Structures are given as C-alpha cells and as structure tokens.
C-alpha cells in the first residue's frame, strides 16, 4: 500500500522520541494513560490535518495492532 502516510523514520533520534513518550506516562494509572493517549492522538491528528493520511494510519493501526 503506498499512500501519503510516511512510515519511514522521520525522527533524527527515534530513541529520544520514544523516551519522551514513555516518560509522559510515568506515574499514571491505566485509566489516566488511556486518557493521555486519546488526547495525544487528537492533538496529533489535528496537527496533521489531512483526513486521507489519518484514514491510512487508522487502517494500518487496526490491521496490525
């Protein structure tokens, strides 16, 4: 499937990103973590602002997770 969604590495230092992500959840309950994730997705989706890309990502995530 080739679309507009970039699945190549976009971060110069992927480990820094991953660390920040995990760190953001530190000390949260499962419920709070799920809330954080939901908010995070909404924020990032709005930033992307392209439904075509988001649909592609939704399809991939559903297929793979």
């Amino acid at each position: 499937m080739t679309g507009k969604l970039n699945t190549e590495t976009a971060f110069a230092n992927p480990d820094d990103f991953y660390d920040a992500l995990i760190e953001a959840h530190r000390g949260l309950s499962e419920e709070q973590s799920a809330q954080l994730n939901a908010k995070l997705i909404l924020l990032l989706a709005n930033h992307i602002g392209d439904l075509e890309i988001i649909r592609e990502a939704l399809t991939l995530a559903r297929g793979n997770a």
Partner: protein
Amino acid sequence: MPRFAHPVFEYRRSADQDSPRPAPHKVVVVGAGLVGLTAALDLAQRGIPVLLLDDDKTVSVGSRSICQAKRTLEIWDRLGCAAPMMEKGITWQVGRIFCRGKEVYNFDLLPEGGHRFPAFINLQQYYVEQFLLERLREQPAVEIRWDNRVSGIAPREDGVRLTIETPDGAYDIEADWVIAADGARSAIRRLMGLRFKGRAFQDRFLIVDLHLPEPPFGRRGPTERWFWFEPTFHPGDSALLHRQADDVWRLDFQLGPDADPDEECKPERVIPRVKAALGDAFKFEFEWLSVYKFQCRRLEKFRHGRVLFAGDSAHQVSPFGARGGNSGVQDADNLAWKLAMVVKGDAPERLLDSYDAERGPAADENILNSSRSTDFMSPKSKVARRFRDAVLALAESHTFARRLINSGRLSTATVLDFSPLNTPDRDPFPPAMRPGSAAADAPIRQAGRDGWLLDALRGGFHGLYFGDDDTRHLPIPVLRCDPQLDRDGLATKRYDGRPGTFYLFRPDQHVAARWRSLDPAAIDAALRRATGKA
C-alpha cells in the same frame, strides 16, 4: 579446540614491604581489569613508570565482557595488542532481531569498507586481559603486584598514601597519582565515602556460557548477534545469543524480577531452557552460569584531586549495548596521555579536569542508552509494554518502527562535544569529524607500503594536512594527505579534505581543531587549549 585455562600469578613479596618509610611511586593503578591494564599499558608506553596492584591472582573469571568494539580495538592496536585479539576473536557486525519466532529487523553496524577493524569482535574478557597482560610484561616500566589489595587510602593535596593488604600483612606506599580502576565495587570509592548514584533495574537475567562442539543454526552458525523478543522457546521475555571464541556461546535469558537466583542457576533448570532455545540435538557443556541484576550508576566527579576513577569504579551500565568495558577503555585512552603530560611537567594539573569534563558526559550518554535499552526490554508499566508491543507489531512492515526497537544501542566512540579542550570550528565544515570526534580510520599508502591512517597518528599530537604549504616549522609532525597517501580517496572523503584543510589530533586520536587553511598561530593556540594551558 583448546579451552581457556586460567593462569595463576603468584604473590611475591616486594622490597616496599620492608621499607622503613612508605616507598614513593609516581603512578599507582589499582585494579588489573580491562581498564587498569589498558591505562597502565598506555602510561608505560608514554614513558611513565607504573605500579599496578590487583587483589586477585588471575584474569577475569566468569561470564563478563565479550563484545569488544571497533574503537576499543583501535585503542588496543595503538598499544600494540590488537593482533592476537583479532586472531582469537569472532568478528561480527550484523545483528538480527526476532519477535515471536519471526525475524523483524536486522542491522549492519559497519556497512562501509575501508576500516581496519570490524564493528565488533566477540572475545571473552579473560582472553582480552591475558593479551593485555602479555603486552604489559614487555614494559620494563611496569611492576605488577598480585594479591595486593588496597584497604586504605589517605589522599592529600600533593599525593596519596595507600595501605595494601597482602598474605604477609599490610604495608603502605606513597603515590603521586592514583588511578582507581578497581571495578564496580570499588574499595577506593567506598573508602573515600563517595556516592555512586543511579538506578537499579529489578529484572534478573540468566547468563549461560556454553561450550558447543557442534555450532547451532547451520553448519558454521551465525557470527551475528541474535536477539529475541518473546521467543516461543522463552515466552513473555527476551533472549540474546552471541558466539565467542573456542566454540563458546552465550545465551542470555531475561527472567523477570521475581526469579530466584540460586534456583535459576541449577543445571536442571537451565538445561531445559537451553534445549528449548537450541533444540534437543545439540551436545553442550556449561562453561559458566550466573544470574545478574543490572545497574546504571556513576560518580558525580571522576577526578578527586590526585585520585582518578576510571571504568566500572566511575560508572556502571547494564550490558545491553556493550558499553561497560568499551567505555572504560575509552576512559583509559582519555586519561593516560593527560596524566603522562602532567607527570612529565608538560602540562598543568588542570588538564586532568578535562578528563572529568569529557568522560562524565560520555558516561551519561552510555547510561542513557543502556537504560533505554533495558527499559524497552523490560517495560516498567502496562502502557509501556503496550507501546513496546505495538512497535514490535508495526516493525514487520514499517521501517519507522524498526528504528524504535531497542535491544541495545551498541557502543561507539563518544564524540567529546563541548569539551574545554576543543577549538570550535571557525571555518565551514560538515558535522562529521567535528572537534571532539575520534579519528576515523582510512587506508593509506606510505613509503610504498599500505597501512592505516590511525597508525600514522600514534604518540603525541599530530596534524593531517590536505594542502601544499610548508609545514616543517610547525611544532608537531604533520601527515600530508595527497592522492598518493590517500590511495582510495577515503581519508579525503571522511575528513571532507578540500584543499587547504588541516586537522589537529590529540594523542588519543580525537580531533582537537580543524581549519580550511594552514594557520600556524591558530594551531599554536589550539595546542595550548588542548593541553590545558589556555
């Protein structure tokens, strides 16, 4: 295949033990592990007499370091002992990552040619120490005392008194300088009341060294690093496989936090694990079994007056990434030339502060990387585990996720960014080989013979010049990089050697400064800066 037999080095009484006053020594290195041996060798080759003390009577025992990195090999080559290691060690550069039985990703740590040393060799720590020792014994300026345990230390402004326990009782000596390379449980650190701060990881790991007359996984077996997340043979946890010299293989099993270390080391527990991983068909004998918990900690400062901490005594990491021994050898490489200059009176004492300024951030980088790897392997919360599993699931088809998989970010030379010894770039340059970088090697041709750039940069400070002007008046030897020397054009490429470019290298082969033209006044200033005089 002959297996390793641990040598026994006899204790010998020294004249110092009968001396009415504590005998004076210039430099005393405490600990003959990887780091102490390297430091002693480097100092001796720089003409500094060294007394090396060790509380044991042999080389490293048990499952310890195996992955010796490219930069480490370059350092040991400078010290004249890499050849036997290369001969004995197993060369590798490819790592494969499996998840639930399927390969999801592989990486090549050295995809380009034109390097003398590979990304890694696997060689057991006892062999490495033995080869270092063989070289050390050729140095008349080094005295080694086995079964000499440092049990007391009294540091002063102008020297250090050490108390040493031996089978004949205790004696004292006086040292101008002490390198504390006495390992993770450093007695000197404890005796000086210094805090070793950091994180302890709860997960336990079973480390199994096996002798396998018949290699697994095909006739010759992979000389690759294999890492499994949640393999079918060890559900829920991770496992790691490395080949070592003498048909010895290492299997690492993550056991989780609740494992009982004594139970898990019993052969009746280990045999089924090994068989599940390798299959029933293989004959094997255990070389060594141990259960470890890992820590990431460091001393706040590596220099305490005349006592300098190096290696595990100064910083400890988890083994994922092979950063423990490899970073300790870089410590020794960094420290030896500085201490040699200070002892000879060629540089002020404060040059030694740069050892801490440079190797402290290096330790932080190693701790950060090895902590992240350990956290990825054993996620600390449900949500962390969920992200980890999502990364693994996405990695099969999407490259971005592969880069997030972290089974260990393997040791490379630390770039000494922000070092007070660096002269920042004034001319335009790409970031590669910026001041603080360890010199990249390249094939060269000199006097009709093929060789390597790093060989030509041994000893003291050196220049590398991609130009035509006369350099004879400069205070340092200069290697002129013309098309004849740079036989494959790789030095020019790796150093972006446009005409006129000049690099200044330190005695540890790190870049101190670089310019786009020959500027003797700038070179002088950079030399002063790199030796703590400015």
